[in-house]
């Protein structure tokens, strides 16, 4: 028995597959854009791209938060309601009241943090499954918003111009909202990939039991993941208010399904442990682009939902097949004592 010469750490096949996973979405996107552009070249005009990116920004911010929760083997169905509550809070704050943008963003995120903490504490310390908790808070947060709004609507003309400008202004042609979404994406992506905290989230989702034995503060991290998801949903609420200018209590109703769809299509496994926020954001981009493309291609818009559903099934089905093949491949690559 001699000490072995270790092969230089090489790119594992799984890495390649993971890359391929996101590559798949990119390919689908390219194909979609190509086909749509051939039929109507204005689809790639500056305005059109800006519109798609703006639409993606909100969904992507939500999807990033959702991905963080899903990676820990949980789910947050309350994001649509949190978005609504945050958007209405921000709208009320700004109603005939000229506040700078930054505190407004913080206020929106703050609302989300509180909602997320409620979810997280109930999941962790109440021992109630995330699905049940967030299904419940989906109703509760929405109900609170309705109570508060009482049927009123906040219109664009009641909001300060500075805030509405924030919704439409651009920096070298890129809207602020998109920049903000990219910032969120990059920060979350880096934390998940390069910080201990991020890796612990993956570990918890991959094997909750092993995570406990490894001394990971599962409770704190779980609450933390929900707080992040809530905060980002709150932030998305501010973006929503800035982009649409009109806010009523129903803002963001039904968003949760789009968000979960984006995350699943983006390759985040529903049982945790794998996937990236990049994938989730790409999923959001793909879904938004499909919506726009259908309108441009003059395909009956009613197909959109069916296509989204089909995509989800396709994505999880394909992931499954790839996983089975990779697993088979990995088994054959056992270690050898030299």
């Amino acid at each position, binding site marked *: 028995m001699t000490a072995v010469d270790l092969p230089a750490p090489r790119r594992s096949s799984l890495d390649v597959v993971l890359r391929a996973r996101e590559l798949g979405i990119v390919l689908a996107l390219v194909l979609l854009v190509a086909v749509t552009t051939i039929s109507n070249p204005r*689809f790639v*005009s500056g305005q059109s791209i800006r*519109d798609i990116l703006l639409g993606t920004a909100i969904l992507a911010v939500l999807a990033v938060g959702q991905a963080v929760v899903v990676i820990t083997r949980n789910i947050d169905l309350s994001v649509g309601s949190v978005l609504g509550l945050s958007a209405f809070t921000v709208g009320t704050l700004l109603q005939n009241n000229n506040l700078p943008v930054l505190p407004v963003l913080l206020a929106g995120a703050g609302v989300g943090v509180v909602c997320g903490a409620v979810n997280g504490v109930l999941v962790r310390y109440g021992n109630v499954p995330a699905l049940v908790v967030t299904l419940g808070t989906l109703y509760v947060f929405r109900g609170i918003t*309705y109570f508060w709004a009482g*049927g009123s*609507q906040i219109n664009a003309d009641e909001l300060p111009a500075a805030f509405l400008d924030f919704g439409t202004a651009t920096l070298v042609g890129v809207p602020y909202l998109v920049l903000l979404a990219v910032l969120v994406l990059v920060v979350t992506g880096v934390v998940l990939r390069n910080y201990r905290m991020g890796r612990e989230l993956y570990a918890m989702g991959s094997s909750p039991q092993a995570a406990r034995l490894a001394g990971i503060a599962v409770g704190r991290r779980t609450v933390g993941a929900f707080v992040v998801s809530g905060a980002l949903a709150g932030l998305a609420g501010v973006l929503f208010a800035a982009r649409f*200018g*009109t806010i009523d209590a129903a803002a963001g109703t039904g968003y949760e399904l789009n968000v979960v769809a984006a995350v699943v299509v983006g390759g985040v496994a529903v049982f945790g442990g794998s996937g990236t926020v990049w994938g989730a954001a790409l999923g959001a981009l793909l879904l938004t682009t499909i919506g*726009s493309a259908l*309108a441009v291609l003059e395909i009956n818009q009613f197909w959109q939902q069916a296509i989204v559903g089909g995509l989800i099934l396709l994505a999880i089905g394909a992931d499954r097949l790839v996983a089975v093949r990779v697993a088979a491949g990995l088994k054959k690559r056992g270690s050898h004592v030299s």
Partner: protein
Amino acid sequence: MSSRKPQLVAALAVAALALTACGGGTTKSDTAAGNTPETVSAGTKADPNAPLKEGLKIAYLPKQLNNPYTDVEVGGGKVAVEEIKGEYKLVGPNDASASSQVSYINTLIQQQQDVIVVAANDPNAVCPSLNQARKAGIKVVTFDSDAAKTCRDAFINQASTQGIGESLVKMASELAGGAGEIAILSATPNATNQNSWIKVMQTELAKPENSKLKLVKIAYGNDDDQKSFTEAQGLLQSYPNLKVIVSPTTVGIAAASRYVSASSYKGKVAITGLGLPNQMRQYVKDGTVKKFALWNPADIGYLAAYAGAAMSSGQITGAEGEKFKAGKLGEYTIGADGEIVLGPPTEFTAANIDQFDF
């Protein structure tokens, strides 16, 4: 989990097919003739001199709550109900679905209201319940969006269909300079009002004086702010030469204006249609919108209250030709099929918009 189940399902299918093959059974064409509408007797004869009752319980059930246009409408209703010393009530779903409206109608029957003023989300789905209400002695007045004629006593029409359709085309033609592509951004594809206006518009557009106007597309924003927003976006992308978007719905016109005002299309594409002055003020002032029209929605709710009260008090029965007084609005005559027309729409421009607050 028995192996018998597949056979069972198959048998069911075979049975179904067999039925079709035999050609038996009830089809739509059978029922179209046979389904006689349920008629609820309008009660005794009208007595035009009967006094308006006090303490009438009048309930408003709009398509959905949380809609600013609706708020203005029912606001007018509240004023009228207070004038006649009645009890005002407002209920409604948060989603514009017929099924939730049915539950509310049922509740109102339980609560023994005297008048239900309703904007139907589906002209047929609410029918059985409305008829139940009428059987229980409740007067049913529809506004905004009519229910089937057989299940309401009167319909408050904001303006004659013809009048609105013509005025929409007139505005579009002015804004397009008499020629070019126009598109319509409507509410839902089965919205009763919008569809009848669009029909009139299409007839108008077919006339020789409008031959240079081309209607390229009717899009539907479902009266949903975001949906309308994206639909406007889609229209402008698909039709680069579009000159005017006509949106005969307050949600649609506001969303389209908001999109255009912030996009590169501003100044190139005109928006018009039916909108609320308060919502549109900003876009009129920034030049996105030159003119749009609307009746005063508060008057609709107001008129509905008086119509319902008159009916409940026995002044009218809903028959054509009957007259009743509607407070500050003066005297109204019931038209064919129980329709009561409010009056001609008002056009709003930068010059006059500040005189209105609704």
